[in-house]
């Protein structure tokens, strides 16, 4: 246990890696054993991330649970992991979505071994990004998270899967192509010849003319993954094509890598540039919120609706970051977490419906509340979270972000608040057409979720409700780190 205490983060990172090895060793025909090992590994990593949450010391903004190992000293590359209040919620989010995602795919029959192997690789990458404090490793893990998506979508996907997989990969690689020079630029122009994030942020480097280029490369490179307008179209297409649990991971966790990157690298290392570019970021974020919501309103496929709602909700995250205030940044991080859980819940409900009805056309479905009360309740709970109903986690996130936005840019704040009505429109429209109304003969005999398949959904809904009732659980963990970041931003000219 002593080893575990001092290597908690590495242990979390190792869980999916061990899972990958186990999956590779078990023969492909023994699907039961593969699923079981995946469930155990993901369960352990989820439990460890809860342990991490519980052991975290909220009173300091310094990195905690840090581990260092020299890697390539000549190039300034060190294996450093550590977390502060900003990455803690992301680790917990990944743990929860990983575990519930594995359970959701319990009925998978096609190429089980490969599926879980790729999932493990993806999750290892995601955990790695959230705990790395070295830019090189961060980028490495980032690439590790992005690449398995191509295979997961192209092999197990549905609607236009090759197109979607290729589009997603090209977009994300274009993002990486911007990121890589930016990261090298950070290391080089800081004059420190290091990739250590803490050193880079503490150095207060004067970036001169390079600052603009590096920051924009960072913002766009990470922003693509966060689905910023107008580079968002890969995301809904990818959601739609991906199998259920991959959509959950994609929208729930992967998109957060982008916003987390902007927060961790962009804002923390280059606060002056952040201050300079904040109005642009806020303007694009408002576009995301309103435009995403309107496009969602016009969709006919359930998954496209939720895909575009993610575009809209990620706008809330970026708007919160752009306000550079305590309420805004806390709200943004809270929203990353809440949206991750909520959208995973959405996709897990749609997954069940699609598996049985083989359609996601809103107008062809109908009366599902009578046929599948559980699956429908799950969707409605996620929907209510999506439109910011209180007592669900995203309410608090949006409340804080919008108040902060009204303070900084009243018009942007007002427009973002108007987005709430549009999101209510698209969610309630779907609920009314697909879930309410008279029962359809086509779906009369469709089975509802069994107890086992309901478990992951119940876990996700319970998390939404828990943080909805007790927002202080989240905000207290964030406070010290957010305040430190805000001070840095306020000190910047």
């Amino acid at each position, binding site marked *: 246990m002593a080893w575990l205490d001092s290597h908690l983060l590495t242990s979390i990172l190792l869980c999916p890696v061990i899972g990958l090895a186990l999956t590779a060793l078990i023969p492909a025909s023994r699907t039961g054993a593969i699923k079981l090992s995946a469930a155990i590994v993901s369960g352990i990593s989820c439990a460890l991330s809860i342990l991490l949450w519980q052991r975290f010391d909220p009173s300091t903004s310094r990195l905690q649970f840090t581990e260092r190992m020299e890697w390539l000293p000549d190039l300034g590359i060190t294996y450093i992991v550590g977390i502060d209040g900003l990455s803690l919620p992301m680790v917990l989010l990944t743990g929860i979505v990983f575990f519930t995602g594995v359970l959701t795919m319990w009925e998978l029959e096609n190429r089980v071994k490969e599926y879980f192997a790729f999932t493990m690789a993806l999750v290892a990458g995601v955990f790695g990004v959230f705990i790395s404090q070295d830019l090189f490793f961060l980028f490495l893990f980032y690439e590790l998270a992005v690449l398995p998506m191509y295979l997961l979508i192209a092999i197990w996907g549905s609607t236009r899967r090759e197109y979607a997989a290729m*589009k997603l990969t*090209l977009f994300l690689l274009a993002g990486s192509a911007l990121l890589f020079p930016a990261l090298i630029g950070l290391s080089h122009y800081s004059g420190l010849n290091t990739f250590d994030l803490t050193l880079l942020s503490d150095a207060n480097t004067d970036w001169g003319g390079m600052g603009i280029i590096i920051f924009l490369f960072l913002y766009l490179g990470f922003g693509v993954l966060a689905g910023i307008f*107008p*580079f968002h*179209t890969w995301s809904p297409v990818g959601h739609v094509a991906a199998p259920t649990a991959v959509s959950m991971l994609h929208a729930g966790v992967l998109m957060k890598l982008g916003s987390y990157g902007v927060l961790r690298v962009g804002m923390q290392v280059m606060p002056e540039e952040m201050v300079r570019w904040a109005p642009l970021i806020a303007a694009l974020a408002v576009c995301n919120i309103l*435009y995403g919501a*309107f*496009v969602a*309103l*016009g969709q006919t496929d359930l998954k496209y609706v939720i895909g575009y709602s993610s575009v809209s909700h990620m706008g809330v995250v970026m708007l919160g970051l752009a306000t550079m*205030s*305590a*309420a805004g940044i*806390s709200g943004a991080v809270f929203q990353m977490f809440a949206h991750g859980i909520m959208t995973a819940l959405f996709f897990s409900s749609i997954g069940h419906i699609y598996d049985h009805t083989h359609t996601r056309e809103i107008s062809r479905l109908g*009366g599902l*509340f*009578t046929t599948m009360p559980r699956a429908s309740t799950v969707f409605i709970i996620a929907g*209510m979270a999506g*439109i*910011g*109903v*209180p*007592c669900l986690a995203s*309410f*608090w996130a949006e*409340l*804080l972000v*919008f*108040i*902060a936005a*009204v*303070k900084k840019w*009243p018009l942007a*704040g*007002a427009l973002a*608040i*108007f987005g*709430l*009505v*549009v999101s*209510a*429109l698209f969610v*309630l*429209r779907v*609920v*009314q057409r697909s*879930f*309410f*109304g*008279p*029962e359809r003969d086509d779906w009369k005999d469709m089975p509802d979720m069994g107890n086992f398949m309901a478990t992951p959904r119940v876990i996700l809904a319970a998390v939404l409700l828990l943080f909805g009732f007790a*927002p*202080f659980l989240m*905000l207290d963990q964030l*406070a010290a780190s*957010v*305040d430190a970041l*805000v001070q840095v931003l306020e000190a910047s000219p």
Partner: protein
Amino acid sequence: MSLSQWGLLTIGAPLVTFVLFLLGVGRRPTLTVALSLTTAALACAGTWAMAITLPEAGYQATTPWAATADFSIHLGIRLTGLSTAMGLVVGTIHLLVQLYSLGYMATDPAQARYFAVLSLFASAMLSVVYAADLIQTFIAWELVGLSSYLLIGFWNFKPSAAQAAKKAFIMTRFGDLGLFLGLALLMLNMPVEAGGARNLLIALILEAVANNDLAGNLFGYDQHTVIGLLLLCGIVGKSAQFPLHSWLPDAMEGPTPVSALLHSATMVAAGVYLFALLQPLFLASSITSTVALGIASFTAVMAAGVAMVNPDMKRVLAWSSISQLSFMLMGLAAGSEVAGFFHLVTHAGFKCLLFLSAGIFIHLAHSGDLTEIGRKVGSRSRAASLGLLVGAASLAGVPAMAGFMSKEVILAQLHQPGYEGFYWLALLGSAMTAYYATRMAAVILRSDSAAVSHHRDTEQTKQEVDHDSNHQGGLADSIMAMTVVGLALVTLGLGWLGPQLAGHLGLDAELVAIDWDSMGVGLAVTALLAGGGLAWYDYGRTGAYREGFLSGLPAIEAMLKDGWHMDRCWRWVSDKIIAGLTLSALFIDRRAIDRSIDGVADGARSGGVLAASLQSGRLQWYLSLTLAVLAVALILLEWK
């Protein structure tokens, strides 16, 4: 028990029912119903306990709930004369409606869900009432909206119910945008508390208004005006005032006891209550209070007009609620601290009574059409007839009845210089109220006097009838009848409690005293006689034609029957503006953004194809290419 424990019990007990329902108790309907009634009784007891033991100086207990460095949000209870009085109304009406539902919903298969959501509704409304922080009010306010959505759409297999639920949610949400923005601006302009954070504790807001701390300019206008008008948007939506009123008549799609609760003590009352709560803030700006008066007086007349011609009993009552809510807002906006609120209390009693009676009528007649009810049931149901008579008399404003006593206080407040226009509109509204109340009672109870009988049946009530015809049973009927009779007796006395209410609010009883010799009372009685008399002539007297005088003016009648075409206006907004924005966003997304990005990819691919064609594998081709390149290179070198 201490006051804070009572507060927790009152708000928490019904919530427990809902949470347990979600956790699986819902599979056992009897248990859920028993739990729901017990918690309703506990909550009701709590409201009484808090009202009785309220200390002179009021009481407040809060705990920080969500805090960042710049803002902090608290949860808690704040007990004042106003909040405890309102709490009494909510707790008591909720308990009555739960009892009545015991009979009304006895055979519904989804009974457990009904009672659980009803409990959530009450818990949310009680939280609006006792909230200590305006953000808490907002949270509870949204939850009230959510539970109305779930209750209006309770029979969600009916497309009309699903549609009505969505409409209610969206329209009130529309108003809530303003409320949210107003709250945000209010928060940002509050004085900073110790520790550097701002908060929205109601007590502090009222203090800031009193100290004139909020004076200042916002976007070039007085701060009070901007914030007040924005907050007013939320109130207009919630309390179904023009132009956001048209969700309320459709909300009839829910079970009748839900309407009884929604129209009297919860949901729509939340808007008026918020106005009463923040009255000093609204009155601090003459623009805001005048706008509020204008909207309210217009709505009062407009909605009463629709109620005069609508053939459906529950819809008449719905339009009447809209109109009566306007009277309350007029009283509050005109500056009286007690008038509007007193009317809220009496209205909660008599409107709930009318709805509960309507439930029995509709149940027996298997139709919601007034004429149909008159023909099939008439005065044969004693309890319902008593309820209808007491309720209608109160609504019409018969002297000494509850509605008269409170409306008179509002009229007296308006009857002063500066408010003449609003006063005459209110009087006109009163006369129209008398007309439709008398019409409703006469059509139902004097059906034998009819010369001809019409047969109209609306789609909506037919479906409700399908549901109603399911439950037969002596016990269920007698529970419903007993509730109605009990409430009728309470309502009879309610009008005389004005002085007690004023005392409880810490005000002079003189404020609600009625000067029986004044011209105001004379005018009010004249309005009553005019409206009621006309309706009696049209519908009540032996040999009446049973057609409203408005049928002589078909254009106006058609417009009124269509609710002033407001639904069409909103449909236009939805079909043209919202749909237009949606389509243009879709167009941009597919044609502009996605196509140009795919274009980049296609360009790269064609470039690849072009480059690949160079690698043809034919030696002659490679050779000639090499020669050509060399030639070009030589020429270029020579050039230099």
